[in-house]
């Protein structure tokens, strides 16, 4: 009974990733693509957390923290480059 609800949540997250990928491909401007990338990254953080729960390893949360930090840094740098300040 536990695993069924976890798999339903994982299926919803996969639909979220597919929708973000569609917006990433056809977005008319750069900002759309960056936002789609950001949303997909946050969903990937939650997927990493669910995998850590399924396999009983707490070390994966450290991977999630480093991944989120790199994504945040990438968004800041791309926004600064769009403004022309870099």
């Amino acid at each position, binding site marked *: 009974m536990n695993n069924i609800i976890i798999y339903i949540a994982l299926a*919803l997250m996969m639909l*979220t990733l597919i929708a973000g990928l569609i917006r990433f491909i056809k977005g008319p401007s750069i900002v759309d693509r960056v*936002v789609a990338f950001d949303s997909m990254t946050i*969903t990937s953080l939650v997927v990493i957390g669910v995998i850590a729960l399924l396999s009983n390893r707490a070390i994966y*949360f450290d991977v*999630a923290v480093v991944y989120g930090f790199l994504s945040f840094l990438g968004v800041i740098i791309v926004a600064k480059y769009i*403004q*022309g300040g870099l």
Partner: protein
Amino acid sequence: MTYVKILGEVFLLMGAFSLFVASVGLLRMPDVYNRVQTGTKASTLGAIMSFIGIGLMAVDHWDENNWLGRIIVLIIFILLTNPVSSHVLMRAAYVMKIPLSKLTVVDKLKEDIELKVLEEPKDE
């Protein structure tokens, strides 16, 4: 113990549903600014609720490996960094002069620039 697990399942499902609603808004909103707003705010809520659910479902492992500490650090990190990236992206879009949607009713920043209360944000 089982009640805590059931509560965690409810939180995880609500968080996943909130992430899904954020992606639907990312597909259907008419404007860049609306997409930034819905894609960042609802994603933050969904991620935080999902991590609370994961932390409640791992009730058997709270003693070992510092599960709760890592999850709390992750939640605080998401809560700090996500609105910052949203604001920076909005400012970059406004500097790029991406046009607003035709359904827009009011643009306070443009009014303030015309009244010379604020300066126009520009390249540095």
